[in-house]
């Protein structure tokens, strides 16, 4: 089996308009594509090029551009190569179509992204809570969710220099560097 991405993949990709193909190395291809064309691309890759394995769907929150980026990682056992298909969707309302009918594992990835980013996938079999079953706040991976502020509001902190520590410090133990010192940036 050839270790390079085969030429017929290139021919195949020419059938779709508006794609930008970047070859990362001999076994990795990055494809940027318009959101509308992604299902077509996946269908072609799966049906004609042997990319039968959807390893993951990942999401990136580009809050400044008001967009979500969805990355579909596809693996071909035949050509031993990875294609990552990148699309951008509008952050509001954050809705996209499910690819469950093409790749069934997508159900889990989409459910996870829905939970973490609040992106809704139309046609996905189950959009209920997945891992954060006991979380009632906003989707925590969205960039506007300030985890640090939430933590400071919810939890209290232990004192860093309690009295009992002084004894230990006298014996040569204790805290070497306080968190404040540790967080200071080096000049």
């Amino acid at each position, binding site marked *: 089996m050839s270790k390079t991405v085969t030429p017929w993949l290139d021919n195949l990709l020419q059938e779709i308009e508006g794609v930008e193909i970047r070859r990362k190395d001999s076994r990795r291809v990055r494809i940027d594509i318009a959101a509308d064309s992604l299902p077509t691309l996946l269908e072609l890759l799966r049906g004609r090029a042997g990319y039968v394995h959807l390893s993951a769907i990942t999401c990136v929150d580009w809050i400044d551009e008001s967009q979500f980026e969805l990355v579909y990682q596809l693996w071909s056992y035949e050509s031993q190569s990875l294609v990552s298909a990148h699309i951008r969707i509008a952050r509001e309302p954050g809705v996209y179509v499910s690819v469950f009918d093409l790749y*069934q594992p997508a*159900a*889990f990835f989409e459910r996870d992204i829905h939970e973490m980013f609040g992106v809704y996938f139309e046609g996905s*079999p*189950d959009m209920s809570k997945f891992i*954060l*079953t*006991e*979380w*009632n*706040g906003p989707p*925590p991976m969205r960039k506007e*969710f300030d*985890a*640090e502020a*939430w*933590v400071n509001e*919810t*939890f*209290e*902190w*232990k004192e860093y220099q309690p009295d009992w520590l002084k004894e230990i410090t006298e014996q040569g133990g204790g805290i070497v560097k306080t968190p404040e010192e540790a967080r200071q940036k080096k000049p």
Partner: protein
Amino acid sequence: MKEIDIPIETSAAKRRTNPLARVFDELVRFCRSRSMFMLHYCTGCGAIELPPAMTSRFDMERLGIQPMVTPRQADILLITGYVSIKTLKRVILTYEQMGSPKYVIGICSCTVNGGMYWQSYATAKQLDQYLPVDLYIAGCMPRPEAVLEGMRKLMDRIRSGEADGWEDYYRRYDWYLGNQQHLFGDDWQTPADVIGEASHYDLAGPGTEGEHTRLLQQCQKPLEPQQTFFQIGGSLEKKGESHE
């Protein structure tokens, strides 16, 4: 079910008359400290230092410490690392199932003050707000030597009677419950009747009941088995049929 009325003799009713009681107490404490069964609830990465501490290299068993499989038979609850809020619920359930006297050890910096997950929305920060921690072993992660050192410290404290976190849980149950409710919501409840247990052990104090336990009693409802459904396969089945 018919209720059977069994008279319970509380320790307040039977005053101690035996002059040897103190000696006997000491013997009991000595025995307790030399035979500790621990339930290691491996919540975080710190658990990785336990296998070497337990097996032949450092061999905890020579100190009388052994792993135990069920909470009902265990004396020590070992929390090894960060506890996510979801896990914390399970940890509390586990803790309340253990028979007294019971001890909690928090291994790893994450249990002390959040550790390197201090700004994470998913983990609880100070374990001792939710459970009475008898001993912390700090470090990220503590080496087996430190774990053993901690265990020996706990043995000393049990022998001297200082390790009384479990009593504190009964005495200040309202405070612990309040912190738990703050995190899990007002309808948080466990199957254990902690207040009943507190009066059984004769440890019910002014802090046992309060506003939080009243809230608990308001929200309490009979427990039902929890059911989880995964409906991913539904449409798969249909497809399979059509192929036939």
